[in-house]
Structures are given as C-alpha cells and as structure tokens.
C-alpha cells in the first residue's frame, strides 16, 4: 500500500525531475553552441544561444512553481522536503549557468570581427568538463549519491586549474603585447564564465549531501583558502 499513499507526491517529484533534466539539456546545448559560436565566430549562433536562454529562465520559474504547489498541497517531510528545498536552490544555480553560457555568446558578439588571439585549447576542455560535471551532478541528486557528489566537487579543482592556466597564459601575452589586451580579455571572460559554472555545479553537489544527510556542507573550499583568482 506504500506507494499509493504518496502517488501524487511521487508524480509531482517525477515531473519536477523531468523538468530539471530538460533544463540541464538546454544548458548543455547552450554550452556546446556558445563554444561553437566562439570557435567559428558564428554571430547568428551566438544570437540564438542568447535568445534561447529565455527558455532556461522560464523553466526555472516553472519548477519553482511546481515545488511551491507540492509543498502547499502535499506537506512533504523529511527527505522529500529536503529534496524540494534543494531543487529550489538548484534551479537558481542552473539558471545562472544558462546566463554564463549566454555570456560567452555575448562576448562573441562584442568581439565583432576581431580574430581570435590564439587557438582555443583549454577553453574547449573547460566546456567539456562543465558539461560532464553538470550531467553527473543531477544524476547524483536524483540518486542521493554522496560519494559521487564529493567526486564532482573535487573535479571543480581541475576546472580551477584550467582557468588558472588560461589566466596566466593570457596575462603573459598581455604583458608582452599590449595591443592584445582587448582580445585577451575576451577570452578571459569566456574562461571566467566557465569557471563560475564549475562553482555552481559544486553548489549542486552540496545540495546532494543536504538531501541525503540533512547536513549543510561547503564543498567549495579552495586549497589556499583564498581561491587564487577565482
């Protein structure tokens, strides 16, 4: 008789999870397309990424409304309540990730027809890492998988190292070629947006731990306590 007692709550939670997956797919697409718009200098594609960010924002509000309705009508408790509260926080992180992806495309628009300062090497790696981390984080959330959440948070260090490497390289170039400052800054902005996505995924990993254990834990602690340039 167990499942029938909470059929409505389960149905509501499933719908919310499906919408979260939809949101994740849209961000995944925005990330790969913003990278493509950067590498191909595709203005039309950049515009498309920026326009489609609206869909991500809409989903955030839709999910928040669904959570609110479940709280009001189903009076969830314990892990159900923690999951809904976590999702209310996760959608904010997801929505911001959409903004960061769109931010890369906005940078592409600002670059106009200036050529890329250098071939893209680490930025595509950051994009791939961000997409993986994002995909895994929602999986860990739905599965209440704490070890996986910790592993995802650890991968953010890799993201930070990539960002640090890009930062150092671009600063070096700027120091020697002052006329490259503009073009270097564009790339720095792109890398910065990707680094921020890593931090947002880490927030999701923290929520996984909250859902599973009820504890709030900060996983975003940098090795040196300052976080370098991040």
């Amino acid at each position: 008789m167990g499942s029938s007692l909470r059929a409505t709550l389960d149905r509501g939670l499933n719908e919310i999870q499906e919408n979260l997956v939809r949101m994740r797919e849209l961000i995944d697409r925005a990330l790969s397309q913003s990278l493509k718009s950067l590498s191909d200098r595709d203005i039309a594609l950049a515009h498309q990424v920026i326009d489609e960010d609206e869909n991500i924002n809409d989903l955030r509000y839709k999910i928040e409304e669904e959570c609110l309705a479940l709280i009001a009508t189903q009076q969830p408790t314990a892990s159900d309540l923690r999951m809904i509260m976590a999702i209310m926080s996760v959608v904010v992180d997801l929505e911001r990730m959409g903004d960061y992806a769109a931010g890369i495309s906005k940078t592409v628009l600002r670059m106009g027809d200036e050529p890329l300062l250098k071939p893209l090497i680490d930025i595509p790696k950051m994009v791939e890492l961000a997409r993986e981390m994002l995909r895994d984080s929602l999986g860990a959330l739905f599965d209440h998988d704490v070890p996986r959440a910790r592993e995802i948070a650890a991968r953010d260090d890799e993201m930070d190292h990539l960002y640090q490497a890009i930062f150092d390289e671009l600063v070096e170039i700027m120091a020697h070629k002052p006329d490259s400052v503009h073009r270097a800054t564009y790339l720095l902005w792109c890398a910065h947006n990707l680094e921020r996505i890593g931090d947002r995924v880490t927030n999701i990993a923290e929520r996984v731990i909250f859902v599973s254990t009820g504890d709030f834990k900060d996983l975003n602690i940098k090795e040196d306590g300052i976080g370098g340039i991040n």
Partner: protein
Amino acid sequence: MPMMSEINHNPKIIVRDLNFYYGLFKALSDISIEIQACEITALIGPSGCGKSTFLRCLNRMNDTIPGIMVEGKILLDGEDIYRDGIDLALLRQRVGMVFQKPNPFPKSIFDNVAYGPRVLGRGKKHEIEELVEESLRKVSLWEEVKDSLNKDAFELSLGEQQRLCLARVLAVYPEIILMDEPCSALDPIATLKIEDLMQELKKNYTIVIVTHNMQQAARVSDRTGLFWLGELVEFGRTDQLFTRPREERTEDYITGRLG
C-alpha cells in the same frame, strides 16, 4: 511549529522501561521517555501502535480495563504514579484529559465547569463563579457563553463543546493535560482554535497530545514521538524529526512510505 532556540530540560514526567499488557498481548514495549514541563509533546503513529495506551498510562486511565499489567516506572515530579497507595483522584486532578469526542456532561455550561471544583469541595459559590469565568476565559469561550451559562452544554457547537471540556479540566488546576485526538471531530477552524489555545496553555501546563494528523503534530508540538507496534521508534525535537529523522522507520512513516 515552535522552534526551540535552546534545549529545555525540565522533565515533568519520566517514563522508564514501561511495558504494558492487555492480558497476553504486549501493547507497549520498553518505553523510556521524558516529557518536559511546559512543552507540547505529540505522539504519532498508525492505529494500534500503542500511543493512546501510552497516553492513558500517564493518568492510569487504563486501570479500569480488566487483565492489564504494567511494568516499569512512570515518575511524575519524581513520584512513581504506579506505586501502591497513590491517590488516584488526586493523580487525575493533576493529570487531566481531553478526549477525541467532546464529552460534556448533560448539564448546563456553568455546571460542567463547576463540576470538578464542587466535587473536590473547593470554594464558596462566588469563588466557584470566579473559577468558572477564569476557566472559560482560558479557553476563549467566556465572551461567547457568558450570557447563556445556564444553557445546556450540548447546544454548543462541537468545537465549543471541546473547549468547554478543556475548561472543565482547567477548573481543577491540573499540571498536565493529556489530549487524545482532541480535534478529530472538529472542522479546520475549530481545530486551529484548539491549537492556538494549546500554545497559550503550554506557558503554564505540560501538554501531551496523541494525534493521527501529522501536520498537526508538526504545527503544534515542541517534541514528537513516533510509536510503532508498541515501541517508541524515535523521540526528538519536532523540527528535527520532520526534517531530518534519525530512524528509517520514522522517515518511511512520515513520508507515507509505511503504514
């Protein structure tokens, strides 16, 4: 739900290793619990889990049932209420009870509240009148009934009858109020009135409530205990129990996966 910024530790009732049998049937197993003074303690759990049996142990209301056996200790302010020679009338005056269905006496509103003090031989006529008014005020019924005190209690609405029964308990100056599903016969507004009253009353009384309504337990109580097949599965702060239960059975019960 009252949030407790600090942990209150002032036990009014201490129960140690309580076992309760109806004949051969063991209805309660090794219950140990401390009921804190001036708090609301809610007892939840599926039907037949022992929560009402436990509640009725606290003022020995089960004594009238033939074939029962009680083991263990229940200490009220340190005194064992199951010891030989205890004054049961005094115990039940100190530990009053409100039941599921309002059960006013077939008397006037006034006489219902005055009944206890009269039986206990307390006070003169005007003192009883004052006590009736005071008790009816405590349950927010005075303004509604002050001009019709001689009216039959059954003419009141169910919610008013339940508040009258609470006034009847208060008129004998109890220390503890036991409530056995006090709102199950009431509509949501009358329920909220009782819940409001409980918050008022807990300033001066220790309240233990048995409820099937988990949201009610979550709303009104400081601590909650979950009973399951005669055992106390988990007992803790209400905010903690409903957000981060320690026991899997609690999680399953309050999320509707069990029961």
